[in-house]
């Protein structure tokens, strides 16, 4: 089975093509330079088409489309999900939505000693992070939007040790270390979402998501909804 997977929840655009029969995977990434816009709209399909061309196949040959559902930047998530839905609509391939936090954690699990939890942390802007935690593959912290200091407090008050990964773990390293978490080194690839992991998790998932029900895990209400009871806004 040929799987095309991608994630646009963070600043990066990550795309992978996986051949389930051989286990071979190829990945292409775009990481914006400091101050540069993420450019998900410009990057996503261009990277996907490079991978397909290299593999000598067309979009029509893709048999499963996997997309990171976030949480992350709203616009980035919509570009990813809209692209996945459109490709599925045009090719008939089934769709699979994968939690971006789960993908971050799954890639880091082999690096965590037994009993150490893996905490996936995505920078959510506005001085918050999106975070979720797993220990020995079991969810122990449900996805949440939270201030880094509050997250550190929860780690400190709870049991066990943690390995934290993701751009939020990097940005708020001091807060999370204050909570007792160990952060993967600054240059570790574990801080970036890997599209290959999105593909592999999609293969393990029990069933595809209906196209019109596939939406991002925004994890935050739109601004206006949060203020709708204030008539002067």
């Amino acid at each position, binding site marked *: 089975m040929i799987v095309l997977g991608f994630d646009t929840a963070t600043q990066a655009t990550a795309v992978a093509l996986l051949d389930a029969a051989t286990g071979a995977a190829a990945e292409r990434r775009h990481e914006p330079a400091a101050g540069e816009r993420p450019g998900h709209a410009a990057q996503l399909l261009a990277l996907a088409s490079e991978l397909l061309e290299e593999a000598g196949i067309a979009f029509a040959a893709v048999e499963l489309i996997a997309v990171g559902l976030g949480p992350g930047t709203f616009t980035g998530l919509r570009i990813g999900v809209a692209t996945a839905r459109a490709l599925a*609509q045009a090719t008939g391939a089934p769709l699979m939505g994968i939690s971006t936090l789960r993908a971050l954690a799954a890639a880091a699990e082999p690096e965590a000693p037994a009993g150490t939890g893996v905490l996936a942390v995505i920078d959510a802007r506005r001085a918050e992070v999106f975070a979720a935690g797993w220990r020995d593959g079991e969810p122990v912290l449900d996805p949440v939007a939270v201030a880094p200091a509050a997250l550190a407090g929860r780690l400190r008050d709870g049991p066990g040790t943690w390995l934290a990964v993701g751009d939020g773990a990097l940005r708020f390293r001091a807060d999370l270390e204050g909570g007792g978490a160990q952060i993967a080194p600054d240059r570790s690839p574990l801080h970036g979402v890997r599209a290959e992991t999105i593909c592999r998790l999609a293969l393990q998932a029990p069933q595809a998501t209906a196209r019109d029900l596939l939406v991002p895990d925004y994890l935050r209400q739109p601004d206006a909804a949060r203020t709708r009871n204030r008539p002067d806004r």
Partner: protein
Amino acid sequence: MTLILGLETSCDDTCAAVVTGDGDVRSNVISSQGIHDAYGGVVPEIASRHHLELVNAAVDDALRQADATLDDIDLVAVTQGPGLVGALLVGVATAKGLAAARGLPLAAVDHLQGHVAANFLRVAARPEAVMEPPFLCLIASGGHTLLARVEDHATFAVLGRTLDDAAGEAFDKGARLLGLPFPGGPALERLARDGDPAQFAFPVARNVAGLDFSFAGVKTSLLYRVRDLGEVEAAGRAADLAAGYQHAIVEALAERCERALAQTGLDRLAIGGGVAANGPLRERLAGLGVAIGIPPRELCTDNAAMIASAGRYAEALAYPHYLALDAYASGERALA
């Protein structure tokens, strides 16, 4: 027969349509989100979320109503801008994904060019009433107010634009001052039917230079009138206020059209945008003594058939040259 699939998501309507290469509208699906009325305006993030939920079903509906499948489509056309960038990106990503997966060409369309191209569509209601360039075109809606000289099918020159609020925005804001629900344009027009436009005079902004528009003054003037009259009196005379207010907006639009016709020597005028549905505006423009083209209402308000129509004349990009295409929020790609 060439078939074009059009997509439009620049504001709060999720639109998909199928149009033939000859300009016949085979389907024109407009999925209105409705939810924004509760906020008194369009909330960009909410609009974007709804577009994503609705867009593929809108495409399915448009294809089904056209008795077609994606196999029959020869070109995908999509609004690239201007508009709400998060909303536009849902349409752009969808159009690119559909086109790329099928190896189809893609036409990136300017929204305002779409409103102009609504005049090139044929519908059952007016089989021969297609406008051929050159003509003068007034586009007035909640998002834009533009006077353009349409040179040919693919280009227009902007002669005037609003310096502040759009005409439809002026209608909506006036309606809100008179206690009417959003979107207030149609409600204000209904209320004005029972009023006397001569009871209250509102400024028409005749002092704005050239062919530009300004609607900030008329809105402020209504605000002061309502305040000076007091709540009870203003409510009692709401119909007269609405009639006077509407008269000022219609005059501002019509006088600019008149001046532009005289300056350009053009003898045909097309109108588009949601405000084109306004009865008194249509009557006033019909009195200008030139040929008037008004597309049916569903082609005047935002729709994807007009985008597909513009796609007929746009330079389409072959696969894979559009893969890096992005949306743009503001500005016009038209000739200066």
